[in-house]
C-alpha cells in the first residue's frame, strides 16, 4: 500500500493543476497554481530536499504567483471579463489525446530505460554545506551568469512595461 503522505501530496499537485487550467475565473486558476506549487514543495521535503522546498515556496509561490495575480488584475476590460473562454471543442479533445500519449510515452520510456534500481537507498540527509560548496566552486560561473540574467530580466521587464509619456517630466519626479 503506497505511502499516504505521498498520495495526498500528489493528489494536491494534480488536482490543483487541473483546477488551475479549468477554473472559470483566472484568479481562481492562479490560486490553484499556488496550491499545486506548494504541493510540489511538499514533495521536495518528502524527497529530503528541504532547502529546495523553501526556495521553491519563497520564489515560486511568494514571487511568481504574486506577479501572475497582479498581472491578471491589470489585464481587465471595463466590463471585468477578460476573454470569453469557450468550450475546448475539437482542439481540447485533441489536446487531451496528445497530452495523454506524451505522458504515457515519457513515463514508460524512463521507467524501462533507467539504469538504476527503483528502490530508495539509505538516506541520512545531505548537509547544506555541500550545496553551498558546490555552488561556490563547480557552479560559480553559472551562479554569476544567473545573477547577470536576473539583472537583465529586471531591466528588460521594466523597460517593456514602461509607458511612454509625451509631456516632459514635471517637477514632481523627486
Amino acid at each position: 500500500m503506497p505511502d499516504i503522505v505521498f498520495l495526498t501530496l500528489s493528489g494536491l499537485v494534480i488536482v490543483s493543476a487541473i483546477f488551475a487550467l479549468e477554473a472559470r475565473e483566472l484568479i481562481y486558476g492562479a490560486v490553484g497554481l499556488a496550491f499545486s506549487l506548494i504541493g510540489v514543495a511538499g514533495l521536495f521535503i518528502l524527497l529530503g530536499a528541504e532547502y529546495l522546498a523553501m526556495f521553491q515556496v519563497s520564489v515560486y509561490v511568494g514571487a511568481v504567483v504574486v506577479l501572475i495575480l497582479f498581472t491578471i488584475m491589470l489585464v481587465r476590460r471595463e466590463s471585468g471579463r477578460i476573454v470569453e473562454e469557450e468550450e475546448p471543442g475539437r482542439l481540447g479533445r485533441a489536446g487531451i489525446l496528445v497530452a495523454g500519449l506524451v505522458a504515457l510515452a515519457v513515463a514508460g520510456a524512463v521507467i524501462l530505460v533507467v539504469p538504476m534500481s527503483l528502490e530508495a537507498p539509505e538516506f541520512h540527509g545531505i548537509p547544506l554545506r555541500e550545496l553551498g560548496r558546490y555552488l561556490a566552486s563547480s557552479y560559480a560561473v553559472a551562479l554569476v551568469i544567473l545573477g547577470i540574467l536576473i539583472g537583465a530580466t529586471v531591466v528588460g521587464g521594466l523597460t517593456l512595461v514602461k509607458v511612454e509619456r509625451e509631456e516632459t517630466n514635471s517637477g514632481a519626479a523627486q
Partner: protein
Amino acid sequence: MTCLQGLPTLQEIVNLVLRIITSRTFLEVVFFPGFLNVMLSAAFLTWLERKVIARVQLRIGPLYAGISGILQPIADGVKLMFKETIFPELADTKLLMLCALGLMLLAFAPAVAIPFGEGFVIANMDVGLVYVFAVLSLFPSVILLIGWASNSKYPFLGGLRSLFQQVAYEIPMWLSVLGIVMLTGTLNLTKIVEAQQRLWFVVPQVLGFAVFFTAALAELERTPFDLPEAETELVMGWMTELSGVPFMIGFLAMYTKLYVMSALITTLFLGGWSGPGFVPQPVWVLLKTFLVASVIVVIRGSFPRVRVDILLKTGWTRLLLLALVNILVTVALISFGLDWVWRI
C-alpha cells in the same frame, strides 16, 4: 510518516488517534509553545498595545474590563463574534473567508520553528530560518487577494500598497540576517541561539539588527510604515470589507504576526532563551519578546507616517545598501579571526 498496509480496522484508527493526541509534538503544538500560547500572547499584545500607546499619549487606556483592563481582549472578541458579518453584494465571499483563514494560518506558521529553550522547539528544522522567511513571503499574495476579493476601490488600493511595501522590504530582511548565518554557519534557529551564549548578536550585528528591525516594522505594517491602513486615507486598508468573525480573524492575525516577528527578533539578535538561571528559559523568551513588542508599540506612538515613495525607495535601495555594509563588516570580523566568540 504513516504507512498504511492494507485497510486499517477501527481499533487501529482509534489507537493511532490516541497515540497522536498524547504525543509530545501534538501537545506542544496545541498548548505551549504552540497554538494556545500564540493566541493568548496575541490577545495580550492587543491589550499591551492599547495600554502603552495610551501612556505615550498621556492617557490611561482600557480600564474597566478586569483589573487594569486585562480582560479587554476577551470583551473585544465577544463583541466581534456577536456582530453581523456583512460582505458587499458583489464581493467574492468564498475567497474572502478562505484568505482570512489563510492569513491566520500563515501568521501562526513561523511560531513552529522558534525555540523556547534548549531542545524545546516544536520543529527543529535544519533550514528553520529559511522556513520562516518562506512563510513570510506568502503574506503579500494573500493580502492582495483579500483586497481584490472585496471588489471595492479602497481595499484594493490598500492591498496593492501592502503588496508593494512588503515585497520591497523582503530583500533587506533576507540580507540582514546573512551576517548571522555567516558567523554561525547554520540556518538552524536552535543552533543560532546556542551560538549566542557568550555574546548576543545585537552587538556585532548592530547594523543588521537595525535593518532587520526596520524591515520587520514594514512587514508588520506598523507605523511609521502603516500606509496600507492609513485611516485618514483608505478607511481601513485591505481589511475594510471584513466584519464580525472574519475581521476578528484578520485582526488577530496581525497581532499574531507581531508576536511571531518579535519572537524572531529575540531569537536572532537578543539571545533567545539565554539569561540568568533563576527563571526558566521559556519565560526569558516571552519576556524579551514582549519587550521588543513594547518597543514596536512605542515607536507607533512616536513617529509620523512615511510617504509612500520614500517608503519604497528606502526599502529597495537604502536598506539594501546598509545590509550589504553589514555583510562587509561581518566579513571583516571573520577575517580578523573574531568569530570564535560564536562557535559553540
